[in-house]
């Protein structure tokens, strides 16, 4: 469906433009337009320093989370197997809060990545059983448990922070795009682009894995290694998004199925790209809604993705129940 891709592109463009036009300071469209063209006046300053980096960071973070979600969902063949449901983003978030609390002064992307990878390793190790293959639902349950524990440890770390920093950490843990700068925008786009390429190369292996373990082995694929590489890429992508935007809830969960439905994408690569585009659209729209919903109040974007995502998760469950799949 070509029209689906066009629709997605139009939505992203409109969302980005609206994200540039709406903000805490009320500046008329004429002045913004003037500022954008000439690079002078208050409009130009607001755009360059505040709104543009925010929108660009949001697009990058959403794309990274969306692609991460789609990879996991395709690999485990379960729409619930998203990095945010399985606790990976919670682990990345906990690592960042811990780094702030301990005052390590480390750059956040590697910290988030380490936290996410450690969590994924822990989930895999704890759901492993010598007797039988790990069903994806066990991974999901164990991941949920790890997510709960990470949340509790995060609150524990928070009690050790001074009040101002604790409030900041709380805001960060909700998932927010407030006060992003161009450095963060470049960071999320640069790392996501590299990881996206790596993932694109792996999509062939994913397509073979979908045929089943035996078939994959017959085609000369080392299934175990390919699986691990795919999970690692997905976790790194998710951590890249988390490092700049916080653990935005449910973006990775929603983006994959929604993107596939809108674009009608079939091949793994197309599904991943659709999920990335959808994730970008979701995050920018959620941020826009969070900022514009109530005059004078800037809610963090995580509040809106939580409000959107939770009913979606409930709908998924209700549908799974009707089909008897869960």
């Amino acid at each position, binding site marked *: 469906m070509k029209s689906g891709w066009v629709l997605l592109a139009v939505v992203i463009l409109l969302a980005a433009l609206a994200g540039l036009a709406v903000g805490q300071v009320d500046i008329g469209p004429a002045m913004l337009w003037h500022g954008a063209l000439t690079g002078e006046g208050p409009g130009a300053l607001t755009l360059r320093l505040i709104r543009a980096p925010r929108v660009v960071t949001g697009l990058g973070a959403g794309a990274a989370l969306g692609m991460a979600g789609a990879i996991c969902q395709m690999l485990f063949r379960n729409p619930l197997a998203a990095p945010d449901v399985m606790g990976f983003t919670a682990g990345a978030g906990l690592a960042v809060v811990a780094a702030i609390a301990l005052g390590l002064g480390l750059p956040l992307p590697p910290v988030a990545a380490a936290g996410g990878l450690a969590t994924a390793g822990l989930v895999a190790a*704890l759901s492993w059983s010598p007797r039988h293959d790990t069903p994806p639902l066990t991974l999901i349950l164990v991941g949920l448990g790890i997510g709960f524990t990470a949340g509790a440890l995060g609150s524990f770390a928070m009690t050790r922070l001074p009040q101002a920093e604790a409030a900041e950490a709380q805001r960060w843990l909700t998932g927010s795009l407030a006060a992003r700068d161009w450095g963060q925008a470049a960071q999320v786009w640069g790392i996501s682009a590299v990881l996206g390429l790596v993932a694109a190369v792996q999509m062939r292996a994913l397509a073979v894995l979908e045929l089943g373990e035996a078939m994959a082995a017959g085609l000369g694929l080392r299934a175990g290694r390919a699986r691990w590489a795919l999970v690692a890429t997905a976790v790194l992508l998710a951590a890249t998004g988390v490092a700049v935007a916080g653990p935005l809830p449910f973006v990775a969960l929603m983006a994959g199925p929604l993107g596939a439905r809108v674009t009608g994408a079939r091949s793994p690569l197309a599904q991943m790209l659709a999920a990335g585009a959808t994730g970008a659209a979701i995050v920018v729209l959620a941020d826009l809604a969070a900022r514009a919903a109530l005059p004078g109040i800037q809610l963090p974007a995580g509040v809106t993705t939580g409000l959107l995502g939770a009913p979606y998760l409930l709908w998924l469950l209700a549908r799974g129940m009707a089909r008897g799949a869960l």
Partner: protein
Amino acid sequence: MSGSLRFVGVVALLALAMGLSLGVGVRDVPVAAWWPALVAYDPTDPNHITLITIRLPRLCAGLIAGGALGVAGTVMQALTRNPLADPGLLGVNAGAAFAIVLGAVLLGAQGAGAIAFLSFPGAALAAAAVFALGGGLRGDAGPVRLTLAGAAVNALLLSLVSAIVLIQRESLDILRFWVAGSLSEATRRPLGEMAMAAGLGGALALFLAPAIEALSLGAALSRGLGTRPGRVQAGALVVITLCTGAAVAVAGPIAFLGLMVPPLARAIAGHRLRAELAVSAALGATILLLADTAGRLVLAPAEVRAGIMTAVIGGPVFIALARRVRPGAPA
């Protein structure tokens, strides 16, 4: 070990936890001072003041909340035949806390007793929603479905709470007071009323226990035994609402207690729901009091909230239980 000896052990453990909760803290109150403080209260003796105005309300709050959550968790797990059911994980705590915060923000009455009673409708709505969406009332809820439904309801309510707090800065204090999951504000909570509510819930649970056991044999078989599944489920939801609402009103949302206690109680009491309920209440109170006492000590003089302590212990317990669950099979 014989059955009665185990029950004695449970009671002894509870007594030990109560003793530690009274005696240990930033200021240790010697046992010798306890009886005089009760019978001949001396308002100039710091030991007496600590014991009567701080430790005793805290002990009561721990007994009420811990016992109530133990009962609520046991009833939930028996009703859904799901080892991962817990008032905190299934969003019932969050529903009660959200109702209180919303009421406090809208009505503007902070810390007043009337606000605390909003926890009951909140808990009832959340419990009904999670059970309906998770398929809990059909008794065939897969653990994954029910747990995820709870996680979704939790996430939804948390987003709403953080939206309220960010919209109205003043409500942050309300939030801190009501949504902290701690026994430290016990003196300002309606302990007497909530003890009655929890007691009522516990009594109803004991009354319903045989019917719930019959129900766990399957709806058709239980009808043959003369049970009306709809009524029993409604009654069990009332128990869950009363117990969880009371616990949240005195201690805020405390997760994982209702998850950890029932398997321990089953190990001690065997598969007899009435005995299990009694042991659950005692063990719930014991664990909560121990968690609270430990929270006072680990970072002294700062306090770690009891809710955080139970969550840090409870997360690994959840994972251990989840590993044993065979997903897909009705638990």
